[in-house]
């Protein structure tokens, strides 16, 4: 059997922690508060948990993690999104202007 790396063990531990908490408690308020705390993690861990939840087919965890990512994007400008997810802007200034013009007026945040 392949040995599980320390990294993978950490992710699986988190997933198991989540599943156990959601199995033992049914109080939605309590779960919400616990989930908020649970998801206070760095982005790469968050993304790894998404992959794990997808692989292990744990729908509730997958939904929640995707929703967490979506909430991180909501209401943010492209530059803010890049900063949060540590993404490099690979547009040339012309390309970036083109994308902004495409979406401007119609879809900009007020």
């Amino acid at each position, binding site marked *: 059997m392949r040995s599980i790396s320390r990294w993978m063990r950490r992710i699986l531990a988190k997933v198991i922690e989540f599943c156990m908490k959601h199995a033992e408690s049914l109080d939605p308020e309590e779960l919400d508060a616990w989930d908020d705390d649970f998801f206070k993690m760095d982005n790469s861990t968050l*993304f790894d948990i*998404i*992959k794990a939840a*997808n*692989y292990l087919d744990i729908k509730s965890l*997958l939904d929640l993690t*995707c*929703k967490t*990512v*979506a909430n991180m*994007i*909501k*209401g*943010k*400008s*492209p530059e803010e*999104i*890049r900063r949060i997810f540590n*993404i*490099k*802007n*690979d*547009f040339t200034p012309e*390309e*970036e202007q083109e*994308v*902004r013009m*495409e*979406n401007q*007026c*119609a*879809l*900009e*945040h007020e």
Partner: protein
Amino acid sequence: MSYNEILKDVFPLLDGTDLASCMAVSKQWRDIAQDDYFWKCLCSKRWPSICKRPSAPTVTYYKMFKTFYKRQHQKKLLPPRLSFSDLEFYIDIWSEDSLIFSEVIAGPVLQKGVWNPPPGICDVLRFHLEGPEYKMTFSVDPRFSVPLCQTISVSMLVGRKDSNKVACIINKSVFDYIDRTSYRALAFDYLDFSSAYPFVSGIRAWMSLLFMDKGSEEVIDVFGVEIDFCDAANSEDEVLWLFDMLDWN
């Protein structure tokens, strides 16, 4: 599960504005966010009836969402089809029945440009002439005097060289309002638009005789004329569109 697949699971949870922001994040995000499937989901939430048709009513759902999601308040004006060099203005001014001014003014002369009003005009008028509102002015040289006890009337036609047609701007209007603070005598008339523009009405052409600050109550000394369409047009392009829409014959 790749990074792309994660984004594909997250993007459906976003609204149009946020998805559009994602498109500007990076090329990878743009390529995924451009998938019309996400925009189809957004369209079907906003306008569920479109699901009753198999394909998008517009070329893409993205285009549909972008165009109709929010009311577009700033309608972009198309570039005007006319230019001032195509036009000339036939202006006739009467004092009772005698003609006191009769000229054909070429379009470029009337186009808002640098025109230095003579010294001796009041500050309010100078301030008005230098203001940002779009107005067409020309100087009257030599100046003419107008006795205010008489009825002063004007007619103004415009001709276009490209199609040899003429339209009316002012049919025959009287300068019956004298603005003593800004030294202008005003006349107006409602513009007649071609039947291609059926619901447009209530837009006036204003002509002002600009006079010197001389102090006489009975006679005004006119040094220039101003024409504007302040009801509706406040830029050169807007004015050119108004001209385009006139009933040319």
